[in-house]
């Protein structure tokens, strides 16, 4: 199954190591950005597969639903999912699904938030230089989040579905 997200992560790794010595700032910045977008598109792909279905004839519906994901709202969802006490809308799920005790949702959420901030700095903050260890870390954060999601989907399907729905629907639900 061809995945933009996986290719972006490969691209991020390549860019981080394109110059074995004296890496170019441009390549390290693009690497950090690619790591974030790898996770961003990974979550869209996975969440639409989970909510819309995996049938091939639903690919257009998944692409349509994928347009509902908003960077800032996704960050807000991630912040909710690392709270011990969420807003009232999510409170019943915290009790039934034991959300605070599931480390994989925390890893996924924390890594997304960190990567979004780093992507913003990579694309817009020209007053700082990036280092290779930072680009490498961004790749590792994205990969770790991929792995955390896969475990979450396997071991805590209901929670994965809740997370997917929250990411997709937060533009409408976030104000409640």
């Amino acid at each position, binding site marked *: 199954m061809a995945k933009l997200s996986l290719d972006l992560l490969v691209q991020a790794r390549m860019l981080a190591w394109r110059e074995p010595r004296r890496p170019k700032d441009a390549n390290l910045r693009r690497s950090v950005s690619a790591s974030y977008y790898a996770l961003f598109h990974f979550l869209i792909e996975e969440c639409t597969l989970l909510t819309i279905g995996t049938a091939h004839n639903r690919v257009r519906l998944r692409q349509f639903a994928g347009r509902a994901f908003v960077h800032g709202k996704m960050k807000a969802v991630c912040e909710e999912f690392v709270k011990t*006490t969420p807003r009232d809308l999510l409170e019943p799920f915290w009790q039934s699904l034991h959300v605070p005790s599931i480390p994989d949702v925390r890893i996924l959420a924390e890594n997304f*938030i960190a990567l979004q901030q780093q992507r*913003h700095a990579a694309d817009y*903050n020209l007053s700082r230089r990036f280092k290779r260890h930072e680009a490498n*870390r961004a790749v590792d954060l994205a990969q770790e989040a991929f792995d955390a999601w896969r475990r979450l989907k396997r071991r805590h399907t209901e929670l994965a579905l809740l997370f997917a729905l929250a990411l997709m629907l937060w533009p409408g639900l976030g104000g409640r």
Partner: protein
Amino acid sequence: MTTVVIPDTKGLAELVQPSQLAEQGFTAPRRVSVIFGVDHTGEEAYHVYLVFPDQTPDSALAWNNVKDMVRWVQERIWKADGEQRWPYVRIKRESEIAGEPGESQLRRDRLVASPTVIQSHAQVNRHKNPGRSARPPSEPS
């Protein structure tokens, strides 16, 4: 009249100083700074810097080697702040703080970093690497 509550960043910083990190078994940075500001979305946030000496190799700063410490610091500040403002925890070397949010505060923090902190850093690393001679980090300028 609107009351503005200024977060106690000094109090938060005291929760995650190198000595506390060493107690948790982490390879402690030279110094830790907690700076209140806003993030890329304009929301209030903390910028937390775990600052290592310039001679720290990339391998020591790799995610696998620092992630437990980063998560511990993040959680400690998140909980202490009542889960309100996200703590962005960054791993940096001294020479890498240019252009970061709160740079001027970071530079002031470097100047006031006490010899005790620097000495405890050297002691921690000597304990963790008994076969290597401990080189104290360079003095702050």
